[in-house]
C-alpha cells in the first residue's frame, strides 16, 4: 500500500492503494467515474485516455506512482462551470458516434489537440486521433465534430 495525492478534475484526492494500481482502475473503482473506459488494458485502443498535465495518456496501463502529485483530467472534467466543452457540444450536434464507447478517449485527445492547434487541418485531426480505435466506423463524423468545435468561439 502506498499513499497517493493526485489532482483529478481540479480536485485533490488522497488514496492508499497498491503501488502498481492502474490509474484507470482507481478512477473507475475508487472515484466511481464512468467517463474513461476499459477497452484492452494494454494501452492499444485509447478508450481510457485521460490528460496528465494536459497531455493525453492511456490510463489503463499507467501506474499510480507515475501520476503522484500530477494533474489528471477525465471526460468529466473537460467542461467548465457546468457547461459542456465545445467539443462535447459539437459531438452531440453532429451525432458524432455510434455506440459511443470510444468517444470518451477521443474527446480527451481532441481537447489536447485544440489547445495546441486551435484550427487543425483534417490531417492533423486524423494524426491526433490515430491511436484511437473506433469499431463502428464513426470516424468521418468524429472528424467533422472536431472541425466544428474548432470553429466555435470561446473555447475553454
Amino acid at each position, binding site marked *: 500500500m502506498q499513499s497517493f495525492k493526485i489532482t483529478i478534475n481540479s480536485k485533490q484526492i488522497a488514496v492508499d492503494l*497498491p503501488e502498481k*494500481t492502474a490509474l484507470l*482502475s482507481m478512477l473507475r*473503482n475508487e472515484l*466511481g*467515474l*464512468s*467517463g474513461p*473506459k*476499459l*477497452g*484492452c*488494458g*494494454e494501452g*492499444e*485502443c485509447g*478508450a481510457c485516455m485521460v490528460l496528465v498535465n494536459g497531455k493525453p495518456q492511456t490510463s489503463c496501463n499507467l501506474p499510480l506512482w507515475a501520476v503522484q502529485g500530477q494533474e489528471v483530467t*477525465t*471526460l*468529466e472534467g473537460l*467542461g467548465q462551470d457546468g457547461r*459542456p466543452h465545445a467539443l*462535447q457540444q459539437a*459531438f*452531440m*450536434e453532429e*451525432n*458524432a*458516434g*455510434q*455506440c*459511443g*464507447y*470510444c*468517444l*470518451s478517449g477521443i*474527446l480527451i485527445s481532441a481537447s489536447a489537440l485544440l489547445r495546441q492547434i486551435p484550427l487543425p487541418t483534417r490531417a492533423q*485531426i*486524423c*494524426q491526433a*486521433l*490515430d491511436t*484511437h*480505435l*473506433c*469499431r*463502428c*466506423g*464513426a*470516424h*468521418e*463524423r*468524429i*472528424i467533422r465534430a472536431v472541425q466544428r468545435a474548432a470553429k466555435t468561439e470561446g473555447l475553454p
Partner: protein
Amino acid sequence: MSAVVPRGFTVDRNDGRKVLPGNLHTNRKLLHWLDFSQPDLVRVFTGKVELGQGILTALSIVAADELDLGLEQVRIITASTLEGPDEGMTSSSISVQDSGSAIRHACAEVRFLAIQRAAVMHGISVNDVHIDGGSFSGPTGLVLGDYWQFLKGVNLDREYEGLSNPKPASQLKLHGRGKVQRIDLPDKVLGQARFIHDLRLPGMRHGRVLRTPSVSAQLTNAQQPVPASVLEQWSKLSVRCVVDGRFIGITAANERDADAALALLRQQVSWTETGSLPDMHGLADFLRNAPHETNYPIQKGDGLGVGEGVSLARDYLKPYIAHASIGLCCALAQWDGQCLQVWTHSQGIQNLRDDLTKALDLTREAIVMRHVEGAGCYGHNGADDVAFDAALLAMAHPGEPVRVVWSRADELSQAPLGSAHLVSLRARLTDDGRISHWHHELWANGYSSRPGRAMVPTLLGASQRANGQPIPLAINPPLAAGGGSDRNAVPGYSFENTHAVNHRLTVMPIRTSAMRALGAFANVFAIESFMDELAHLSGQDPLQFRQLHMTDPRSLAVLDAVVNRSTWWHQQREEGVGHGLAWARYKNTSAWCAVLARVQASETLRVLNLDVAVDVGRVVDLDGVINQTEGGALQGMSWTLKEAVQFDRTRITTQSWADYPILRFSEVPELNIHVLDQPDQPSLGAGESVQGPVAAALGNALFNALGVRVRQLPLSQDHILQALNEPA
C-alpha cells in the same frame, strides 16, 4: 420444469390468427407498446435494443410523428422481460420494419381512440378533431385537451384492431428530415453512467472466468485443477473460486483482487491440449474438403458443369473475422435463491433467457432479464456468454450481485467469429458478351449459433461445465429470413440460367456465428468481383456490363445515382489510381446499395474515396441512415483491407489489437453518402447493405489501378504481392 421450445428465425404469420403489422402480430395488445399513465409523457416499449445503431431514436421518431407529439414527450423503453413486447433478437436489420411498423400502427390506433373519445366528450365529429404537439383542438381552434385526458377512460389492455391507418408520408414531420439528436449519445459524450460497464450494484462482487486456452483443452488435473495452496491463500482475501468441469471462475470483493486472482489461476492451472484447428494457410482446402450438407438457394434453367462451356471460373476466399468490439463483454447477475436477475448487453434477451433456463435448470418465470447498453457488437459476440458466466457465479453467491468482464484476449479468441467462406464461381458468356449461365458454389460454417434456437444452449460457459454439452453446430437462417452463408448467393441479375449451391460445414473447429451481413459480405464480394472479371474478359465497361443484366428499376436507380452524383468517377484517372464499383440488394429483399471506390495502389492500397448510394425505402431517421451507411462502409473497408483472425493448429493466436489491426483515422477516405428517399415505400433496414459492395468495389478498384486481381481477403500487402507474382 417446462421445456422451452426453440425459437425460429422468423415469426410464423400463418398461425391461424389475423395477420397484424410487424411484431404486433406476436404482441397484439396496445399496452405491450404504449403507456400514457405518466403525465405529459408517453412511454413507448420496444423489444429491440440499442447497439449504437440509433434504433431508440428512430423508433421515437416513428411514435412522435404518428401521435403528433414532440420527441421530448416520447420516452422509449428498451427490452426487458418485465414489460413491453417480446421481439426476440435485435439483428438482421429488421428493427425499423418489425418494431417500427408495430409502434406506428399501435400509435395510429391509440391516436384514433383518443380522437374518438374527444369527439364524444365534446359532441363533435372525429373529423373535426386536430392534434398538434399532443394538444387536441376542435373545429374553431378551441383547445379540447390532450392524450392524457382523453385516454383516461380508454383501456389499452385490448388487441390492435386496425381502426385507423397510419398517416401518409406527406404528414410525417420528423421522418427523413434533417438531423434528429440521438437519444443515447449525450450521456456517452458527457461521461454519464450509461453503459453496462458503468452499472454498479451495491455489494457487487467482481467475477472473472479462466477460459480454456483452446477449444478442446482439458484440465491436466481434473480432480483438483486449482492447487490447495492457492485456495487457502484466497480464503484470506475473500476470493472465492467456482469450479465446474472446465469452467473455472473466481469472484472477489474488489476488481483488482479479481484480476490478480485470474492472473494467478492462469499460472497455476495446467491444460492438456490437442491440435484440432485447420491450417490457417490452407483455408480453401479445409473448407472444400470438410464434411458438409448442401442446399440449393436457386436452380433456374440449366446448370453449368466444370470444364466445357465455362468462359471463366474463379475462387474467392474470406478468412475468419472477429467482431472486435471496442468494449469488453460484461454482464451482471443476482440470485436470491428463487429468482435470477440478469443485466446484459445481449442482442436478444429473450433468446438468452431461453438458453439460461436450459443451462441452469430454471423456469422462464424465475429469470428477469434487462438490457443495458454495451459497446457495438456487430453480431453474436461474447455478450451472451458473459451473461451466463455472471449467472453461474451469482448462483454460487446467493444475495450478492456479481459482475463479470471479459478480457481483450477473450474478446478476440473466445467469442464466436464470422466464418471463413469460400466461393467458387463460373459463368458462360455468349458470343455477344452476355452471361447465359451462372454457377455459384460456396463452403462455410453456419452463420448463427445464437442462443435460444437449439435444444442445447449455445453458451460457452455452459458447454464447459461438468455436465455441459458441446455447443451445437452453427446453422443458417432459412432463405425466407435472408439466409445465412447463402445470404446474397443468388445474384441480383437476370441470367437465363442461374444456380447456387450452399455447403454448410458439419464440423466446427472454430466457433462461428452471426457477424454483420452474414454470408452477404463474402458472396457479394465474389459476385461483384467476378462480374468485373467477366466485363474485363469480354472487353466491356463494368458499369454497362452490369446494366445489361439488370432489370429491377430500383437496382438500376441506385447504381445510376451513385455514378451520376459522383464528383470524381468521370474524371481522368491518374497514374496508380483505380476506380471500382459494385452493388447489391441486401438479402435480395431488403435495402439497395451501390458503391464507387477510388484507390491509390502500389503494393499497398490507400483508399481515397468511397461514394455510396442507398435506397432503404421510407427514411425514418435520415442522419441515422447516413450514420449506419458511413459506419458500415468504413467497417466493411476495415474487414476488406486488414482483417483476418490468426491461429495455429491448436489455439487462436489473435489475442490483442496488435494481432488484429482495424481501420484507423489516418486511413479514412473521403466519404459521400447519398440516400434515395422513397417516402411511399416500406422502410428497410440500413445496417448491413453496404459491406459486401464496399469489399468488391475496393477489389475492383485495385484491379483497375494495378491490373492484378486479388481474390483472397484481406486485400493486404501480402495478398497483393502474391497476386502480382502469380503468372497471369
